């Protein structure tokens, strides 16, 4: 198992670098000039050249990347071309918001999804078909649209929750929770229904397998067959699905943060993209990728731990 962990970690690092290189190249090849943007209209050529040199934009791409990498290994992500603020600090300020969203929606999806999945798998019938269709509805409703609707219904009309804005955890736990309820609900729609369907499907699959029927014919009561044996086996594909949806919901935070005006990484990304703020874009991409890699690693490790075949492999 330890070997497996090390191997997965070893694979994760090159992955990070490949992604960062790809993004760097893509962004750097973009026409359009940050220097022009910063100076605005009516700048002189001299000012332009000075800024260009200062920002290091005159150098060839490879050396730009090399400098960036060098800086990164020394613990710095550089500074924004526009605000001159350290990219690292901007990201760390906003990271909490995005992480709260992702973790919250993943947990909610997991709890609701698994509970619903178990309930409908054990009892056949209409509820199961409802879950099937509902899971597609959950996916089909664009999260930005759902967010808007929830705001209008629960915040504006019913005045139950704040319509937008974020209160940091340090200020007030209650207000922090309240500011997160609607965004997390919005994000979880697709995750909860998807996990429910997957749990139901894999539990159904497991229930019709040979060893379950062997346990029943050996006289095991239904309850322990399902809860102890079937669930343990169905957990494997479900865990993988939860991971997939966690990554999807991470992407969804970009839109949700816009709708709910939350100062997270997503809104930073949108802003930086319009500004062609290269260091910020790079930093945001790297952070997102890091989160995805960590999520995948957690999923892989959980899977390995649950599955004896992987856990005990040489």
């Amino acid at each position, binding site marked *: 198992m330890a070997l497996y962990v090390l191997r997965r970690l070893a694979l994760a690092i090159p992955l990070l670098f490949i992604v960062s290189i790809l993004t760097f190249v893509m962004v750097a090849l*973009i026409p359009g000039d940050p220097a022009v943007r910063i100076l605005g209209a009516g700048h002189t050529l001299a000012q332009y050249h000075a800024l260009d040199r200062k920002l290091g934009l005159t150098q060839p791409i490879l050396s730009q990347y090399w400098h960036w990498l060098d800086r990164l290994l020394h613990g710095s992500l550089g500074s924004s071309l526009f605000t001159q603020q350290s990219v690292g600090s901007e990201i760390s300020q906003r990271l909490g918001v995005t992480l709260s969203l992702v973790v919250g929606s993943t947990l909610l999806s997991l709890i609701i999804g698994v509970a619903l999945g178990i309930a409908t798998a054990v009892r056949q019938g209409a509820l199961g078909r409802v879950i099937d269709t509902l899971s597609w509805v959950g996916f089909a409703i664009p999260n930005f649209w759902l967010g808007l609707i929830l705001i209008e219904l629960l915040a504006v009309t019913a005045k139950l929750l704040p319509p937008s804005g974020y209160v940091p955890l340090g200020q007030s736990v209650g207000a922090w929770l309240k500011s997160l309820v609607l965004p997390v609900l919005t994000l979880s729609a697709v995750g909860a229904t998807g996990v429910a369907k997957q749990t139901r499907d894999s539990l159904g699959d497991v229930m019709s397998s040979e060893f379950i029927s062997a346990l029943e014919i050996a006289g095991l009561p239904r309850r322990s067959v399902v809860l102890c044996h079937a669930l343990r086996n169905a957990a494997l594909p479900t865990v993988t699905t939860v991971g997939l949806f966690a990554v999807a919901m991470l992407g969804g935070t970009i*839109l949700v943060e816009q709708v709910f005006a939350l100062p997270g990484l997503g809104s930073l990304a949108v802003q930086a993209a319009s500004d062609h703020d290269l260091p910020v874009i790079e930093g945001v991409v790297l952070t997102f990728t890091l989160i995805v890699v960590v999520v995948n690693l957690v999923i892989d490790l959980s899977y390995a731990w649950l599955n*004896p075949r992987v856990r005990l492999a040489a």
Partner: protein
Amino acid sequence: MSAIAPIEAEAVARGPEPPVPGPPSGRPGGMLRVLLRKPLGVVALIVLGGIVIACAAAPLLAPYGPDASSLGRELAGPGPQHLLGTDELGRDILSRLLYGGRPTLLAAAEATAIALLLGTLLGTVSGYRRGLADRAISLWSDVLLTMPVLVVLIVVVSVFPASLYPAMIPLGVMLSAPPTRVLRAVTLAVREELYIDAARVSGLSHAQIVLRHVLPRIRGAIVVQATLVGAVAVVMASGLAFLGFGVQVPAPSWGSMVAEAASYYQQQPWFLVPTGGAIALTVLSLGLLGDAVRDAGVEVWGGATTTPQRRTRPGAHLVALNKPHEPQRDPGRGGGALLVVSNLVAAVPGGESGELTLVDGISFELSAGRTLAIVGESGCGKSVTARAVLGAPPRGGWLAGSVRFGGLELIGASRGELQTVRGRRIAFIGQEPTASLDPTQSVGSGLAELVRLYSGCPRAKAKRRALELLEQVRINDPARVARLYPHQISGGMAQRVMIARALAGQPEVLVADEPTTALDVTVQADILALLRSLQLSTQIAILLVTHDWGVVAGMADEVLVMYAGQTVEQGPAEAVFHSPRHPYSDLLLRSNPYRAAPGMRLPAIPGTVPAPGRWPSGCRFAPRCPYALESCTAAPIPLLETAKGHYSRCVRIDALQAARAAEAPTTETTGGR
């Protein structure tokens, strides 16, 4: 050899056998036909088609131009003039939706096409070639899946702000990763099929094989992936538009209209509904269509169909199956009988009459220390019978008749009553030992769990007992094996574990359904010896279900021969082997190469076993029987006692015995080689 000749002559005279009449031979490529029978799929197809056509034909269908504004009619609700209302500039929402659908759907189509093209190519190459190409492509997919899609898209689209199309290229590339994965898995599975090997042997090149065999087989999966990717692409494209990317005001696009609707919610809440609804409806129909296509694929190409499990009670017509002239076994007769089965019937839903009988009136008794073997070929109902003894009906079906064990009637018993018997008094071992064990549980912990269940003893004691049981089944080093998981032990070892589990409750009866069929012949001999020695020491009664007459010969005290759901012969083992009283048993024993002269044609039984639901009304073996007469097919044949304890369902025993007597005696009596 004179008896053989008429049989041979018959076989030749019958000529080539007709194919089994099966389902109507329509083209299985009529997956479309199956698809059209699914209501949800049809609706989804119609809705999707409608949306696409409507948007494509926007210039013809839209009541207004996309920019035509009606002053004084801003933010109006739905009405006769404007079916879906108007926006903040008085423009007709319906028209703008129709025009706005075009860039969104086109962009999504572009991304989907790229994703599927790449995905199919990489997936099939990866799954077919394996090796280095596979590893490289998998690494590539890993990289793609790790990239934050929306962020990358935003960056690209910010460069080309006027349209969505350039951003669709990287989207297509990134979205090709899931189809690559899925199509790789499907291709791998197809690659394992033997017809691929046969094609190789015939000299076809790899390219020919992929085109002829692989691609047609995976086209269902390709369509499903296309709908999934399409759904994601629509969501992404509209999401980008919502953020303000890729649109040129005032040109409409679905996502940007939602953004407009958001800012004007106070004045006109309705505005949000059609704008977001269009996106939701399109994605929903894509998703439901994909589900329907996948289900259709499973139906057409086999794999378990999800038939709903009906727990219906047996209908009145089952009563008629209890034929009155059948010799009813007197339940009180067997003095030492542990288990008495009378007129066991098992059926499942299906066939033309709605009910398919699998077992049609089997009766037998089991006594302590004795072995009854049920022997027959596939489809005769022996496995169903084995499970019925534990009160378990066939999947989705039901049981009738009587299975009495120690005063308790097991057919129709409640779950609680069955649980007092299962495992504790009647145990079961099946054909696939490794598959019968929970893969996530170690051998020892599974055994201990059963011990605790049956005896309620504390954990430590249960653990010790588990080790004892492993010793009892002659496993060396039980402590080490107890720590192992099912995938770490061989088939033979797994069957010993299953026997140990069966013994955990100290049962009086063991039902073994083809326990050694999946094992090597030397392992089989060991397992059978183990069962026999356990029987000698514990006096356990064994019901052994098998197709192998050699196994029967060693183990059985009594033999029951099954054919097409019925008992055709039943009696002491010696009698059945040395003087069979049914043509089926006789011919089956004769056609065994063991009894024939090497290199000569075997006296084979012509034809095939009739499937349940297609059983002839008279003697079910008559169509294949060399002694059959008209009287055999006229009416059902009863099971009669022809010699002490030896039953037969045949009215032509005299002819059979005459034929056997005419034969040279050497082939039967010694039987040795």
